[in-house]
């Protein structure tokens, strides 16, 4: 195990008897309830953080299941009415030989959401149980999850644009399916779950393990 000299000497606001504002980075005495600079509520460590992470995570995962079972998009043409789920839409592209688009759809709508669920679960568990992954990697993972979370809404926007645009009377028309609502809810709950995670806990565990705590 490498043990960086610098890391062991870092002093946290908690060590100093202070509480920091997560919004504006101002330090206050521990008893302070609200940041006098920006008005944000001050919490030394959010004890219920993990519970909220888990609750939103479960809601998000629960919504992700119907998002994949129900049709995302209904296409009506002169000859047929077609209802496609997320995976079904990708399979259709494979059927027509359009492998690259199929791969992009599968990656953006299946692989990334599932990876996000796993990453949040891993981060939450790693705070409770020791993990061999270093705090730096976990911090980077957390930032990636927070950054990517919003981008999953792209599926919803694509469905919105297509079903608004493709309204060609009897020739062809597209309508959003009920899965779009579940998918959007899943994305929103996953974002809330990631936001509920207090990344300071990643570093607290590290401090304890390195024995810098008295």
């Amino acid at each position, binding site marked *: 195990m490498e043990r960086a000299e*610098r*890391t062991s*000497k*870092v*002093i*946290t*606001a908690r*060590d*100093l008897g*202070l509480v*920091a*504002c997560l*919004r*504006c*980075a*101002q*330090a*206050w*005495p521990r*008893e*302070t309830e609200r940041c*006098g*600079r*920006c*008005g*944000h509520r001050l919490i030394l460590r959010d004890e219920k953080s993990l519970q909220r992470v888990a609750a939103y995570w479960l809601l998000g995962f629960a919504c992700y299941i119907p998002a994949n079972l129900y049709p995302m998009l209904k296409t009506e043409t002169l000859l047929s009415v077609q209802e496609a789920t997320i995976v079904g839409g990708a399979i259709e592209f494979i059927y027509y030989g359009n492998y690259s*688009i199929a791969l992009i759809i599968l990656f953006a709508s299946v692989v990334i959401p599932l990876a996000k669920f796993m990453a949040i679960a891993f981060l939450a568990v790693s705070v409770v149980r020791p993990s061999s992954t270093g*705090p*730096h990697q976990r*911090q980077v993972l957390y930032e990636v999850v927070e950054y990517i*979370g*919003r*981008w999953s*809404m*792209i599926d*919803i*926007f*694509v*469905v*919105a*644009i*297509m*079903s*608004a*645009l*493709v*309204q*060609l*009377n009897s*020739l*062809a028309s597209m309508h*959003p399916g*009920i899965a*779009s*609502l579940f998918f*959007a809810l899943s994305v929103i709950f996953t974002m809330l779950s990631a936001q509920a995670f207090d*990344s*300071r806990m*990643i*570093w607290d565990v590290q401090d304890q393990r390195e024995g810098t705590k008295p």
Partner: protein
Amino acid sequence: MRKAFTPGPTSGNERWNRRGLRLRGSETEMSSITDTVPRTDLIVCPQCDAAWSLARPEPGERAVCQRCHTVLITPRRKAGMQIIALATAVLFLIIAAAVFPFLTISAGGTTNSVSILEAALAFSDGPLVLLALATAALIVFIPLTRVLLSLYVLVPLVFDRPPAPHAARAFRLSEALRPWSMAEIFVIGCAVALIKISELADVTFGPAFWMFAALVVLVVLQESFLCRWSVWNALSEPQKS
């Protein structure tokens, strides 16, 4: 911001590093904790809770948390004025992009044009109405709100006036809304939708599409110019003196 950058108080046992943050021994820090007086000599990393002695970087430099590498302060010269200019441009572009036709499709002699709001309102049957409202908020109303809030906060600061009433609350709301402002995602979504439709019909871009694409570039620039710590600091300074 036009506030002067003064270095924080110094003491004997501190180590400088080149990024403008100083690390101090703990024994000097334990003293003088009084009720609800902020420790203006410190900056605490919101990501990892590491406390650093505050030394303001010069414009163009960045203060980075030495433990988790989160960027804490990024002052820029004339950033305030540039942000105001960008925000004003974004404001007009949002309104124009929401009104003008956005995309036009044609196939077999039938054409259909939609605006951005119409695209959002495509979710119209039954429970999907909720989704229509959410989409409209994410791509038009939340970005619009954020622009208005940042103008409200920044204009008095840049012109050396006292902060507007409730400016701190306005800026806090603007920051809280940041992850929910999804205009740029919508633009990429357009590109994806067009690839999917292009085999079915001809698609042409309306003026609003180009306005919205420009808007996204301006929003990204505006975000990168904004040093949040400098704004909070400027908002708190007049009350202290």
